[in-house]
């Protein structure tokens, strides 16, 4: 297995997987606790619409993925804030509308473009050095912001109104969280693909949620699980000639069900009954 590390493409893939695993699993803690799971799924599909438009008009794919992702996530946040309609309804509309746009843009392309489908299904083994630089830069930006504002992010995930009443700029932090979710989706788009990216945000955090009663421990566990699944998933994908995105996500899903079965919280409740 060690000789694999001698290959440049494998070094890039493992590094990309580790970065994506870390950033997705850490932002996932706040997404799970703040109840934004569906919003993230909608953002992933919007980002893919951005990628397809970029290929259609000849722009860098990640730039329009960011624009589409941010627009979707901010509209979602605004709708929740104003209470104009139920959040799941507004996201459902945006989710399907952006997916329809993506299909439309794909239809307008005159030729089959395998690179576009790489963003839909994920292809970590084909990550280029330039893409790795972009993933690295965005990961540092997202993780650095979370590190600097973790106490505020935890507080709004726990109770946004109480946070605002205590003097925390809760509204601004909420929009910052949405922005970080959109950036994370873009970071992970090439690695696990638009369809599966949200699993990488949701599953490690949900697995960690089963294991602890502490916010800081949940973040730590989530990061370890996310990293382990991403790196091991890439190695399994290469070893058994499997697609990388599903390998990562199915490994994470297996760990999730294992954690549910062995959850100290659940076992404690059963014991208490």
């Amino acid at each position: 297995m060690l000789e694999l590390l001698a290959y440049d493409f494998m070094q890039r893939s493992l590094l990309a997987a580790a970065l994506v695993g870390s950033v997705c699993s850490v932002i996932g803690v706040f997404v799970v606790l703040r109840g934004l799971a569906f919003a993230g799924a909608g953002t992933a599909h919007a980002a893919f619409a951005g990628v397809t438009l970029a290929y259609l008009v000849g722009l860098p794919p990640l730039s329009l993925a960011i624009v589409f992702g941010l627009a979707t996530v901010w509209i979602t946040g605004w709708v929740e804030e104003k209470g104009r309609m139920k959040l799941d309804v507004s996201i459902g509309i945006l989710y399907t509308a952006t997916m329809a746009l993506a299909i439309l843009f794909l239809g307008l392309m005159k030729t089959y473009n395998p690179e576009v489908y790489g963003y839909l299904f994920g292809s970590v083994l084909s990550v280029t050095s330039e893409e790795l630089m972009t993933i690295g830069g965005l990961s540092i930006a997202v993780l650095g912001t979370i590190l600097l504002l973790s106490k505020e992010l935890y507080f709004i995930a726990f109770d946004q109104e109480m946070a605002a009443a205590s003097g925390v700029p809760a509204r601004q932090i909420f929009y910052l969280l949405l922005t970080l979710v959109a950036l994370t989706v873009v970071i992970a788009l090439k690695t696990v693909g638009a369809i599966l990216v949200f699993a990488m945000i949701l599953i490690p955090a949900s697995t960690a949620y089963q294991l602890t009663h502490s916010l800081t421990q949940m973040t730590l566990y989530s990061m370890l699980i996310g990293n382990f699944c991403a790196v091991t998933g890439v190695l399994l994908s290469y070893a058994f000639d499997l697609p990388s995105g599903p390998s990562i996500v199915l490994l994470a899903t297996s760990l999730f069900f294992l954690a549910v079965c062995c959850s100290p919280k659940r076992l404690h409740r059963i014991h208490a009954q």
Partner: protein
Amino acid sequence: MTHPIIRFDHATFGFPGTVALEDISLSIPESEFVGVIGPNGSGKTTLCRAVLGLMAPVSGTLRVLDCACEELRCHHRALIGYLPQKGMLDRNFPVTVLEAVMMGRYGALGLFRRPSGKDRDIARQALTQVGMDHHRDSALGALSGGQQQRVFIARALAQQPRILLLDEPTTGLDLTAQHNVVELIQQLHQDLKLTILLITHDINMIRSRVDRLVLLKTRLFAAGSPQDVLKPEILSQVYGKELVITDKDFIVVEDYHHHH
């Protein structure tokens, strides 16, 4: 008279087309313990949100800590400890008691600053004041409703507030827990000389403990000592004609037709 820490001057609150509270004039001096009562929809929570700076008056003025509502910045809000109405707490939310109380320090600390050992000491002290320090490493969701309310009061105290705002703190608690929570609030008022606004439906529980009662019904219906406010003629006007008070010492609100 002590300088008012909260001052409403002909203040009206609401949304376009809806008035939630009208023409409120009320001064609350520092260290006063005020009970706010009134039927559902009378504007109690609006009063609470206004004092927190989450809602500005549409006319008139409100000054809290010598600031107009729109000037109430984050560092002012950090001086107002707030216990919101008891929501449905996710029993599995991964937060320990100490982590939840530490959140009370975050507003005062400001952005980018990490809590220090001193902040942890303040949180521990707040837990001791509510008798919950021995539970500091427990999961918040594993505690009883009464214990959780104590933890949230500790969170508000960890802000080192000048004003404590409690929105129906006894709702959903059993009788013993209700009594213990109100007794704790009274004790904190005596020990820390905090200005307390306690919003409640439970008139009996607070009538002997507060300095002053404020009775709301979209406007300020009455304000004064409990003896002055809790008069049958005043209460029956606010709570409706079909309701009567059957006992002067222990207020029981009954259905008029049933009573007769």
